[in-house]
């Protein structure tokens, strides 16, 4: 085990009382932060100090703290989930920062992700996109079919699985200059488009999910590729290509 070091950092954290208030960056000096702690543990440490001082702690989203739920977010030092690729904020460690470093911590910025408080945003727009078509209507009453009864090519099964690893964190939106949800929607469209079970509703699915994303206020896709680089699960731009193909075919034939 490498020896743990302690570092001192300066944090510039976005503080905002509620959705209506304006909000601003606040500066905090934090001493003796273990380089072995995760970014969220570092924020816990900050909050303990704030509570001890009788101040209001920083609100931020978190749940699993093991990179699988998508709850943690945070735009850290100019990038979603901070420096490095394929990492969620809960899996980002303080050894990625230097002693004496100033670290900016901001919420996801998107019209469709309004700030609730401090660093916590309302991502229910993603849920509504899912409700618009991110499912297969399988009747499960009584006589469920064996899942392996339908043969599926390995290649498609793998691609569908890769798409299904999207954890709905919203880093793709946060990274995109247009706050576009294309990578998220494309992942959700692709995971079914590649499977036989998904065919029945395929056309409605892509049309409705894309429409809902626009209705929620997510922007158009400029194909910058920022989402793919920042996605903690490495969801590929190929999914966006697939979504664009599916959408074109569906709108021509529907």
């Amino acid at each position, binding site marked *: 085990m490498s020896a743990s070091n302690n570092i001192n950092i300066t944090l*510039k954290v*976005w503080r905002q009382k509620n959705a209506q208030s304006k909000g601003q*960056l606040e500066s905090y000096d934090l001493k003796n932060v273990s380089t072995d702690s995760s970014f969220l543990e570092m924020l816990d440490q900050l909050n303990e100090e704030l509570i001890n001082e009788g101040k209001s702690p920083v609100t931020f989203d978190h749940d699993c703290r093991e990179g699988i739920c998508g709850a943690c977010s945070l*735009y850290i*030092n*100019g*990038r979603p989930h901070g420096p490095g690729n394929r990492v969620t904020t809960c899996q980002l460690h303080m050894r990625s920062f230097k002693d004496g470093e100033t670290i*900016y911590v*901001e919420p996801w*910025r*998107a*019209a*469709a992700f309004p700030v609730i408080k401090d660093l916590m945003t309302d991502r229910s727009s993603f849920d509504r996109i899912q409700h618009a078509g991110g499912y297969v209507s399988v009747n499960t009453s009584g006589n469920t079919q064996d899942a392996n009864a339908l043969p599926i090519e390995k290649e498609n099964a793998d691609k569908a699985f890769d798409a299904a690893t999207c954890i709905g964190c919203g880093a793709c939106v946060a*990274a995109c*200059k*247009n*706050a*576009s949800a294309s990578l998220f929607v494309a992942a959700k469209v692709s995971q079914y488009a590649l499977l036989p079970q998904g065919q029945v509703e395929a056309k409605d699915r892509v049309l409705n999910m*894309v*429409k809902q994303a*626009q209705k929620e*206020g*997510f*922007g*158009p*896709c*400029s*194909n*910058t*590729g*920022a989402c793919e*680089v*920042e996605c903690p699960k490495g969801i590929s*731009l*190929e999914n*966006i*290509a*697939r*979504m*664009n*193909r*599916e*959408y*074109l075919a569906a*709108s021509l034939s*529907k």
Partner: protein
Amino acid sequence: MSEAKGLIKSHTVKKYWMAATGLFLCIFLIGHLAGNLQLFMDGYEGRLQFNEYAVFMTTNPAVKLLSYLTYFSILFHAVDGLVITINNRKARPQGYAYSKPGENSIWSSRNMGILGTVILAYIIVHMQNFWYIYKFGTTPFMMSEDGSSPLLKDGTVVKGGSIENGDVVMAGENLGPAMRDLYEIVIQGFQEPLLVAFYVLGMIAIAFHLMHGFQSGFQSFGLKSGKYGKLIDKVGLAYAIIVPLLFAVIPVYLFMIK
């Protein structure tokens, strides 16, 4: 037709139009470049061939149709691009205090609207420089090699003819419009260093625009995938460097040698 209305309003459909017009313009540029490269031909032969080409480009019905398609594409692309850029901005009303977009995307991809505006300014100046003057301005006329006789648009030299109001006249008879000397206008135009610099700038903007735009157009139609994806990236990069470079070399060359 509420469905159709939704389709025109869709971000995705706007991007199909953007890609269709943009990629059509990429094909147009190849044809345009092939024409321009004739300016490298020296002497009377070169001058004659270029001016005959100019006649062909302004009179051939098929070329006319293509030119309307090109005008439409430029206009539609510019307007659609403006609407898209506005929508892009709307989706993030409040920006980040500290952001490092260079870590995840190339500059061109984030500045297509600005690059497009430079290109549009370039196109307007360019049309005024050559197309407008050729069509409506006072231009020099193409003469036979010994400088004595005018030419008709089909290239016939009219010995003993003269030019009146742009038409070739011989013995009181009007034989039709005279061939204009666009070659001369181009050569004269590029004696002005500022204009040469402006043209080079326009081509730099197109290069950066296409460094992202070429492959982006394919991605918008969902055509970038698997092994073709990498190939499209490579062809796009090659196109974005070679085509604007060849365009830009012409004014610089004409400025230096004449």
